[in-house]
């Protein structure tokens, strides 16, 4: 399997995404913003469509659209007096509507749009890998560096504000990282499933973890294993990679719940 260039690329990109998605998703789940990744995914769809229309790399346009969408959600939430889910709904539906309109004007409703919606392992290019490695690396470093500050905001946003932490900037940072993750993960798991990889491993980890930090570490482990096992399975069983990966992540939730239940009994 690894003799094939496209599989090596898929695994390399998948490994980065498998680590990054739960790491960023961790902070979304802690803030009860589990669905934000999904909202950003729908905006990314509009970005992909714009890429087709303008004949530039859909990954790049998706990245730009996701960042704009994520920051819009954050600003609507904090400044616009819109409740969290209302902000999400506004951006979510605008994104998908814009996407549909753009896609049809680009005459791209037929082409390989499917691969962006559900992911594909055949289409990862060397260029994709370079982009994913570079941006993913930056995002992971930013995350590691700001971990304690982000945890502090998560635990008590108001106390963090009183202490003089740059709360608004940290919230925007999370939004931008979530957007980057969505755009980078899109090629492997697809727009419709990317959010699942950000959220499911974290929820699963929460069942068995004993601290904030252990939750993060276990979630990253689950994400990575889900991607690697999912890609392998999808290769041998000829299944769509996004769906397969997410099913493994969902399976990990079941597994962790069982472990938790057994532990509580004893």
């Amino acid at each position: 399997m690894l003799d094939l260039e496209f599989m090596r690329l898929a695994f390399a990109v998948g490994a980065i995404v498998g680590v990054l998605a739960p790491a960023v998703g961790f902070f979304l789940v802690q803030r009860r913003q589990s669905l934000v990744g999904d909202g950003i995914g729908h905006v990314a769809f509009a970005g992909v469509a714009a890429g087709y229309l303008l004949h530039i790399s859909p990954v790049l346009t998706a990245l730009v659209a996701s960042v704009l969408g994520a920051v819009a959600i954050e600003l609507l939430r904090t400044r616009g007096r819109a409740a969290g889910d209302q902000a999400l709904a506004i951006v979510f539906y605008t994104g998908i509507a814009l996407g549909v309109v753009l896609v049809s004007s680009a005459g791209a409703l037929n082409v390989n749009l499917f691969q962006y919606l559900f992911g594909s392992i055949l289409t990862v290019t060397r260029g994709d890998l370079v982009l994913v490695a570079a941006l993913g690396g930056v995002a992971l470093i930013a995350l590691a560096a700001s971990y304690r500050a982000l945890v502090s905001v998560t635990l008590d946003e108001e106390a963090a504000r009183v202490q003089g932490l740059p709360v608004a900037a940290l919230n925007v940072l999370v939004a931008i990282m979530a957007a980057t993750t969505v755009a980078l993960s899109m090629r492997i798991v697809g727009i419709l499933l990317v959010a699942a990889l950000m959220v499911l491993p974290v929820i699963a980890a929460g069942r068995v973890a004993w601290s904030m930090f252990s939750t993060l570490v276990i979630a990253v482990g689950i994400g990575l294993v889900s991607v690697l096992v999912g890609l392998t399975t999808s290769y041998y069983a000829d299944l769509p990679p996004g769906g397969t990966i997410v099913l493994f992540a969902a399976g990990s939730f079941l597994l962790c719940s069982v472990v938790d239940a057994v532990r509580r009994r004893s």
Partner: protein
Amino acid sequence: MSLAVELRDVSFAYHGGPPVLEGVDLAVGLGEFVAIAGPNGGGKTTLLRVVLGLEQPTSGSASLFCEPAARCSRRSAIAYLAQRAQAGGEAPVTVREVVSAGRLAAGPLFGQLRRSDRVIVDEAIARVGLTASAARPLRTLSGGMQQRAFIAKALAAKPELLVLDEPTTGVDAASQESLAELLAELHGELGVTILYVSHEFGAVEKFVQRVVLVRGGIVFDGAPHELPGLWHDPSHSHA
């Protein structure tokens, strides 16, 4: 005397609501230990929020360390324990993680906690008697023990201004007593300025120099022994 907190003719109403505070003047000097009491809904929490710059006064001005409260540059010197503090987030969070968050503004904002900061965190945990439970998830502790973890979080900041909103709710008498002694020590030895909101400030009564009663405004401000008899139960809602 340099002021830690100053409110000048402050009035405040929550967005479109009735006035909660009216004509409040309050000056707290550096190193003062002030108890704040008053009936439920009297505006104690609101007063603290205005002091800390979390709410903007409708009229009048609020300053912290002689700067406008909302734009105070010495925030890392302030620790605030909100009434009914709770740890946000879904993941299990340990006592040590909560207390470490309190150390954040004082230590480096990014990267690892320094060794010296970890020592301070462990000291704060020991102060509230939670050393044996430091690695336990907060949600597995009793309400009073959780409250003590939040007190430790505030202490870990090594603040110059410590603002506590009913920190002893759900805390047993022995722990209230030891918190009172701890506050007296912080105040006496380190000169920490303390604003302490409580209904039952019996435990700190012997340490505070000043009591402020809040009921839509400040209705009493003076030494504890000057309190009108009527107010000796400060949770009293009688006019």
